[in-house]
């Protein structure tokens, strides 16, 4: 073969798209659907984090806290002579298992009820019960105390935080379980979408794949090309979905502020740290799902080639 100078060699080129996947897997449907899945995932994560935050806020050290509610505190007690509130207070003082008695002031009641009922509860002229906070030194529930209180002032409620804590925990657990199943379903749907798009690409490039296979391409070469493409599309879609979720989450965070006990420090709402950290993780997870699904789909498909 004669060696001669010929036309300058083609310029340095970007990675050659040997299977033409830039056109075979180009549709917008995949990134759009993966983006929608990411959006849902972001909401689910926000839901589970919010539940956890509210739960920890409410539970606090409530395990040993005793709350007594006396309705119509000013009415006369059963024994007569004193008010219902006074009768309850003296019963509590007499109990060896109760300490640190403290009757909530109007201000304290206000701040407790504000998130639910508005700025000034007293103006509403509601029949607000008197609330007494105390420490409960026993492990068990205050059933005997409750019936003793009921005897002097019927309708008085005595509860430790334990009852509350277990109810809140049950609620939190079920919210988190639901959110987890939403995440799982969202991931499965994303994988299914990617698998369908990959199959469509395989069908469209069947001949090219056969040719490249015949030239000695490894299964890993071919699966790798598809996986790269799927990874890119899934990560892009997911990043867009997470970005769209951001303002929605900020808005939700703002709505939740009074309940979470976070004082609004600035006019800008802030997202809790774990949520801030999980939003950028969404495209990474989507990329991994894209890569893995494409690898499995293509390697399975290639088995039919000799």
């Amino acid at each position, binding site marked *: *073969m*004669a*060696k*001669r100078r*010929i*036309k300058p*060699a*083609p310029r*340095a080129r970007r990675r*050659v*798209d*040997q299977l*033409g996947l830039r*056109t075979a897997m180009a549709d917008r449907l995949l990134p759009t659907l993966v983006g929608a899945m990411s959006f849902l995932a972001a909401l689910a994560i926000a839901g589970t984090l919010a539940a956890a935050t509210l739960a920890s806020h409410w539970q606090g050290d409530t395990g040993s806290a005793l709350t007594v509610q006396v309705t119509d505190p000013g009415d006369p007690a059963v024994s007569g002579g004193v008010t219902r509130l006074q009768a309850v207070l003296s019963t509590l003082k007499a109990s060896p298992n109760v300490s640190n008695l403290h009757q909530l002031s109007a201000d304290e009641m206000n701040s407790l009820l504000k998130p639910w009922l508005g700025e000034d509860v007293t103006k509403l002229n509601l029949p607000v019960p008197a609330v007494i906070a105390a420490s409960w030194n026993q492990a068990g529930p205050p059933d005997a105390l409750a019936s003793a209180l009921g005897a002097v002032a019927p309708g008085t409620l005595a509860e430790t935080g334990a009852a509350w804590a277990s109810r809140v925990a049950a609620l939190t657990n079920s919210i988190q379980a639901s959110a987890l199943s939403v995440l799982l379903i969202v991931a499965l749907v994303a994988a299914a979408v990617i698998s369908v798009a990959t199959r469509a690409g395989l069908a469209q490039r069947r*001949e*090219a794949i056969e*040719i*490249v*296979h*015949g*030239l*000695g*391409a*490894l*299964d890993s*070469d071919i699966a790798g090309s598809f996986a790269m493409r799927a990874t890119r599309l899934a990560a892009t879609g997911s990043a867009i979905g997470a970005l769209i979720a951001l303002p929605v989450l900020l808005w939700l965070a703002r709505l939740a502020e009074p309940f979470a006990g976070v004082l609004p420090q600035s006019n800008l709402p802030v997202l809790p740290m774990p949520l801030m950290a999980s939003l950028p993780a969404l495209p990474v997870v989507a990329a991994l799902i894209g890569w893995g699904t494409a690898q499995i789909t293509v390697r399975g498909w290639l088995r*039919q080639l*000799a």
Partner: protein
Amino acid sequence: MIRFVDVWLKYRHNGEASAASADVISGMSFDVPDGGFRWLTGASGAGKTSLLKLMYLAEHPYRGRIEILGIPAARISRREAAMLRRRIGVVYQDFRLLPHLSVYDNVALPMRLARRPEKQIRSDVSELLHWVGLSNKLDRRPNELSGGEQQRIAIARAVVVQPHLLLADEPTGNLDDEQADRLMLLITSLNRLGTTVVVATHNLSLVRNYPAPCLEISGGRLVHEG
């Protein structure tokens, strides 16, 4: 060396080798030594392409034993098969160029799969495309070219990695006499450098001009060797 021992082939339909489908290759046995050259002749439908498919591992026999370049074809992994295919250059009867790639990228493909450095790819591909007379069409797509031009690209792609085994299926079908002679010059010089060559053809004048042992088949059987 290529060795066929009592090889039988049927085409599968939907993955099933139905009992009704006919044998395309029947009890074929022959050897081609390393560095050998064989013509493969026979009427249309005799089974030339099918025989080549067995040699480039696109089909597997349902009975018999095949060795390609000394490697038993039945007992290798997918990875080993891919590695073996990289040592085999094939000029397909229907070219099988990738329509979305340029002429240059089509010819460069086997070198890229073998992860050769881009610099070497550039010089080898350019030289070969010059040799087949297409150095002015590097950036064209295959479907913008004539049949003969496409055939020359297919030839360039088959020989660019200096294969140990070259299988050409009707490689002169679309070439004029002068180009056919040029192609034979290329093939015989590769053969002299040690490449084992099998060329299937209808072109009997070509066979007369380049005398070499001949595998003649008919109805899937070897009817004459030598």
